[in-house]
């Protein structure tokens, strides 16, 4: 009878031993195992991504010439307005450079824009990440900011051989300093509320008492530039609710993030030109 009982407990003993071995393995070995398993699945991720692109290409081939001509005309108009913006932007850049040299201000970090296709989106209730199709092969560094047309996407959390993982701003792990547009006082932003069938959202804390925002009069939340990771002025989301925090010294509230975060297909990584 005792032998039978011992035989029955063997699986649990094995589990305990496996756990003990795992706890004793050095961090370096665990990192190696993790990277190995990631790289082992990377070809599957990449192949699926290229297959989706091919599917999209063949879908686009079905468009008629008339539709293409109309799209080309619309693009030409858009390009004309962008040309004007580029000219204004160059003048403003020159003005900033002149003021920086006059006032001896430290210049902003300069970036190289690396556009990348999204290979996989992984949005659980626990974390929000995407895998992009560029990694060490394009010099993507860990911590680099990632943006899209709607504003901030997140930051690069892992870099692999041909891919990189981006932690989205809707992820609970992401915290950064933002400012309300037109204000210079920093407030704390954290992602993490991602309801089903609804747009992602985050929370803000330490909002000064004089700032008012609600659903009817939302305020745009932008990056502050503090911390040196994200350039200032990039859209994080829109503050739609503010209420007094328990200490009554500040306000806390909710930030609605861009709905398009859930369907990203292409993003831009800002690679610092002179990393410190």
């Amino acid at each position, binding site marked *: 009878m005792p032998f039978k009982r011992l035989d029955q407990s063997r*699986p649990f003993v094995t*589990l305990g031993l496996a756990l003990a071995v795992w706890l004793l393995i050095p961090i370096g070995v665990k990192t190696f195992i993790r990277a190995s398993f*990631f790289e082992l699945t990377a070809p599957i991720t990449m192949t699926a991504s290229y297959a989706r692109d091919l599917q999209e290409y063949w879908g686009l081939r079905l468009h008629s010439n008339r539709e293409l001509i109309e799209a080309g005309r619309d693009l030409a108009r858009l390009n004309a307005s962008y040309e004007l913006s580029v000219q204004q932007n160059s003048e403003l850049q020159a003005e900033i450079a002149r003021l920086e040299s006059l006032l001896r201000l430290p210049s902003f970090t300069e970036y190289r824009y690396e556009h990348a296709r999204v290979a996989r989106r992984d949005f659980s209730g626990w974390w929000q990440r995407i895998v992009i199709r560029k990694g060490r092969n394009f010099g993507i560094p860990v911590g680099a900011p990632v943006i899209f047309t709607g504003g901030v996407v997140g930051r690069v959390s892992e870099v692999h051989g041909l891919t990189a993982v981006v932690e989205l701003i809707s992820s609970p792990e992401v915290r950064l300093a933002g400012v309300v547009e037109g204000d210079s006082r920093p407030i704390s932003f954290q992602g993490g509320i991602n309801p089903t069938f609804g747009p992602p959202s985050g929370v803000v804390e330490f909002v000064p008492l004089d700032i008012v925002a609600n659903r009817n009069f939302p305020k745009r939340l932008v990056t502050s530039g503090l911390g040196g990771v994200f350039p200032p002025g990039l859209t994080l989301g829109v503050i739609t609710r503010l209420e007094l925090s328990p200490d009554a010294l500040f306000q806390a509230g909710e930030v609605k993030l861009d709905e398009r975060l859930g369907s990203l297909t292409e993003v831009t990584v800002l690679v610092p030109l002179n990393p410190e």
Partner: protein
Amino acid sequence: MRRTLVLAVTQFVLWAIVAEVNHLLTDFHVFLFVGALYVVFAALLQPFRSGFASAIIGGLICDAHAPAELFGLHAFLFAAAHVSVFHLRDRIPRDDGTARVVVALLTNLALFLVFSFTQIHHSPAPGAAWPRLFADLVCSQVFVAVVASWFSALQSRVLFLTGLDREAFA
């Protein structure tokens, strides 16, 4: 060893399919968790050693795509689930397909809840996070109920094709 590798290959197939489905579901903010499928077939029908090893490999595949600080959590939970199901398997009509699906659903429920409780503290508003997790759980359970029989059949078939099926009920 060969049996473990064959089971691991089927787990790669499962991971690829579920990752693709989850990619397509991001528009709706729904996530499918199918942890039980990495565990149940091997725990019910395979020898302990190869099933245990394959559960750990399945866990490591999932861990490689989770945040780095969680590395090992899936593997441990899958291994614990494998040990628990293996311990109970003589009391379960494991040759019956329906029973296997029920075990898969119960295991998935347990794994999802344990995983959620380990992660919920990261959320800035845990109370607001539960409705999303509940919706994910419901969708995951429906998916597991639909896919469990197919995945079990796939694993049996692959073991048969590789000449390992004679040992399957050892």
